[in-house]
């Protein structure tokens, strides 16, 4: 790699050196004769150079006034040639004299070029030559700074202005971004230190109150006694209040029985419940969710009416937490508010609601079947999942009745519920599903048939297998057939020597693959 780098570097140096050689070489100043003649006309007198008119045989010509001799300027000779001597009557040419000696056009051109290269004459006219030798002329120029006048004149050039503006804006933005991050980091570090400090302040008094006071004493705690433990001045500080809330909630999660009640009483005595409820009106969604979490954790039923306002919030997080809190805090949980939700229910929400409903199901009458009549398919699907997960066998009959009228996706979920609970369904439910065009539905129904099916299902499975379904479905159906009717299974396996079939058979017989 190093060798390659050196080679590249040397090559670049070589290129640069060659470039300077090329630039240093003498180039023709006048690319053609016309440019030289134009130059002579515009330049006027040139030291050492004179002109005279001669005829075709090289003899000096005399004009009508009888005057002749050399002329200092080419333009004069040119005018003389064109005006005095008529081109048709006399053939004349301009002869070039260098220091009074005649020379050819090329030699004169070279002479003038040398004068220019050496800086012996200064260019008077416009750029009639190729302009490559300006450096020698530039060296004659007296230096004047580019920044003449005030500094702002420099930015009059639009391109410079744009570049400068971009750099400035970029620098300002860059510095602002970094300063913002540094300030943010510093504030966060400061907050963390403060929190750790307040946490130390709080632990002592909190333990003391919890262990030394009864619930009644705590509820009738005087302001004086309260502020002795938690100074009023500190309570007004947002960070202190936040640490106190977080600490109480954390303890509440871990504690049981009387301690939980004491913590809730203290929460209210410190007026933290109003703080939590106030958060529900915040314009920031994160604050609203924090408020909902606090209300949920501390069972603040007084905030329930405010919570219910958020159950149909367009914000996913607010909506999820509001529904979870409503489910948790309502005395008589009526799932109609969930049934009427228009937003689709995500699996994340379903998981959270399931945890709460599972907990409530043991102590309250929830009427899960309310969800079956929802207009929202995701809610109906959630209802079927609840039947399966909570083991609500008594609702299966209702599902069976609905089965024919629901979508394939719902049929799949209903079949899963029957299979999971091990309750045999009507033969038609599985048979109709296995005859569907929807492969997913056929697969689920075929799989369920293996667990809760009967002979009629086995016959349908056999019929489907004879149509050579896709490999995955074949495996599922054969497994079910093996469970339902071993004789029929063996009959099917032995009548066909298809390699796929034999491989599936081997798979199903392998004890290591029972759950694969």
């Amino acid at each position, binding site marked *: *790699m190093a060798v390659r780098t050196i080679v590249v570097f040397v090559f670049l140096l070589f*290129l640069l050196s060659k*470039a300077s050689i090329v*630039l240093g070489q003498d180039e023709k100043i006048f690319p053609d004769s016309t440019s030289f003649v134009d130059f002579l006309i515009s330049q006027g007198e040139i030291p050492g150079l004179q002109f005279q008119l001669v005829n075709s045989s090289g003899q000096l010509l005399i004009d009508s006034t009888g005057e002749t001799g050399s002329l200092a300027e080419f333009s004069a000779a040119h005018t003389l040639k064109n005006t005095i001597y008529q081109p048709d009557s006399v053939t004349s040419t301009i002869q070039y004299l260098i220091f009074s000696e005649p020379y050819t056009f090329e030699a004169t051109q070279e002479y003038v070029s040398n004068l220019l290269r050496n800086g012996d004459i200064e260019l008077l006219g416009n750029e009639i030559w190729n302009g490559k030798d300006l450096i020698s002329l530039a060296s004659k120029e007296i230096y004047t700074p580019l920044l003449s006048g005030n500094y702002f004149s420099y930015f009059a050039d639009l*391109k*410079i202005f744009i*570049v*400068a503006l*971009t*750099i400035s804006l*970029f*620098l300002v*933005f*860059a510095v602002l*971004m*970094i300063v913002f*991050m*540094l300030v*943010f*980091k510093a504030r*966060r570090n400061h907050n963390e230190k403060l929190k750790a400090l307040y946490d130390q302040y709080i632990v002592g008094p909190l333990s003391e109150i919890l262990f030394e006071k009864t619930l009644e004493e705590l509820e009738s705690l005087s302001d004086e006694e309260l502020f002795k433990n938690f100074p009023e001045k500190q309570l007004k500080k947002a960070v202190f209040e936040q640490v106190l809330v977080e600490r109480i909630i954390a303890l509440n999660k871990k504690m049981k029985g009387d301690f939980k009640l004491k913590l809730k009483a203290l929460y209210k005595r410190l007026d933290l419940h109003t703080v939590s409820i106030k958060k529900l009106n915040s314009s920031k*969604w*994160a604050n609203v*969710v*924090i408020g909902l*979490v606090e209300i949920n954790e501390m069972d603040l039923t007084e905030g329930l009416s405010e919570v219910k306002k958020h159950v149909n919030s367009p914000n*996913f*997080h607010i909506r999820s*937490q509001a529904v979870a809190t409503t489910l948790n805090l309502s005395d008589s949980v009526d799932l109609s508010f969930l049934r009427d939700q228009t*937003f*689709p*229910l*995500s*699996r*994340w929400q*379903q*998981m*959270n609601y*399931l*945890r709460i409903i599972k907990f409530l199901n043991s102590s309250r009458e929830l009427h899960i079947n309310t969800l079956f009549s929802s207009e929202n398919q*995701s809610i109906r699907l959630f209802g079927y*999942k609840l039947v*399966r*997960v909570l083991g609500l066998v008594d609702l299966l009959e209702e599902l069976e009745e609905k089965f024919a009228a629901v979508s394939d996706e719902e049929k799949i979920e209903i079949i899963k519920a029957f299979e999971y609970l091990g309750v045999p369904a009507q033969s038609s439910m599985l048979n109709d599903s296995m005859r569907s065009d929807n492969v997913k539905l056929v697969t689920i129904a075929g799989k369920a048939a293996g667990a809760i099916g009967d002979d009629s299902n086995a016959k349908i499975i056999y019929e489907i297998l004879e149509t050579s379904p896709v*490999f*995955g479905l074949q*495996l599922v159906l054969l497994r079910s057939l093996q469970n339902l009717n071993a004789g029929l299974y063996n009959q099917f396996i032995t009548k066909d020597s298809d390699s*796929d079939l034999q*491989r*599936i058979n*081997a*798979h199903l*017989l*392998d004890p*290591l*693959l029972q*759950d*694969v």
Partner: protein
Amino acid sequence: MEVLGIAFLFLSFSVIVIYLLIMILSTLEMRDHRRKNRFADYQDIITSPIAPGVSILAPAYNEGESIVQNVKSLLSLHYGKFEVVVINDGSKDETLAKMINSFELEITDFAYYAEIPAQPVRGIYKSKNRSYNRLIVIDKENGGKADALNAGINVSSKEILACIDVDCILSHESITRMVRPFMEETHRKVIAVGGVIGIANNCDVQDGTVTKYRVPSTLLGRFQVIEYCRAFLMGRMAWKRLNGLMLISGAFGFFNRELVVEVGGYFPKTVGEDMELVVRMRRYMEERKIPYKVSFVPDPLCWTEVPEQEAVLSRQRNRWMRGTIESLQLHRATRLNPNYGIMGMVSYPYWSVFEKMAPVLELLGLIYTMVIVIIGDFSAFYFIAIFIVFYLLSILVSSFSILFEQVSYNSYKDKKDLNKLILTILLEPILIHPKIVYWGLGGHWDFIKGKGGWGQMIRTGFKKSDDKKNMDHDTLNS
């Protein structure tokens, strides 16, 4: 010359504007992510019957030295419904033998069906020991990483595929956190979720998690820490905000299995199989007008050792560049095509100009500068101004990414480590960036020569997203 100058100036401004936008978008996205995380209880997912099952696919080639430890680490992840599918891709060392011995594996009569074409499978193993019930080992002919993953997909049975490098260190929480985006969306289907790859060089690892972060000891290693922060914490978070992610790292990516199978799995004839799959999945969804999302989780959940030797790193960068070129080439039908939404109109052009063409444009810029120096049309003012802007831009973006990491996760707590990173930030544009450009150009050159790729096919490209699926087995394995 004037036109070229204006073009380069425009390009320079575009780079600046894009980086500033990336910084803003990633900040907003990270803020939202952290807010959401405050209320998430990941414990529920582990046991919930509603959580999706996950198949972890880990291809292994000559990993004999560490395979047993790595598989044990995978088996100990905290999640309820998951299986670990290790694919021995024709290793020439003791990878398979060590797994057979350590996990009490036995060959089974697994009815393997190549729904996605892959090299022949020699055997599928399961353990007699119920403790290793989640483990499935596939032994197959060598066919490369993409081919091994395709074999794994054929055997997998869960709803989500977690495609990882077997030598990656995964946090115990990795599955729960990566699965969340799949469960959260209500109006769009989440087709894939990418994760951050942290750098484990020089760090302390305990029980499958990095417990103490230290920056790598070499300049190249430290450069990669900065680069990873830029790419993962900034770049991908910004693209996530726009739903324009086109790349999910092959070392740690989660995919919807059904869709992966539907599009025909990985394309084994490209070295950029990870990017190619994501682009193809996105095309599939766009062509069928199904609302979808490619998500990203910025939490540190996966770590890997990065190469610190120049030769290894150069090969990796060469491969990445070829992968990018091949993926873009294969899907050039999406370029500036409004039918492909954000991907066609924003992500693809960005990748084409600022990722694929970046080294070429930098080289052209250098040549242009040399030419104007030679012909004398050179303005020192513009040159110095542009040089300063880009040096500052590099420092700004890198510093921001490190600060971003510090504010979000604060992994590098030691001030000495931070100082080393700052020094690396200052040196990177001068000492390392030219090499990265050079290696990128090497990737272009190798692509032109047709190295490793699949010449004609890649040049022709996929007309539709399911072209790959419709290719027959023999063609794919030719």
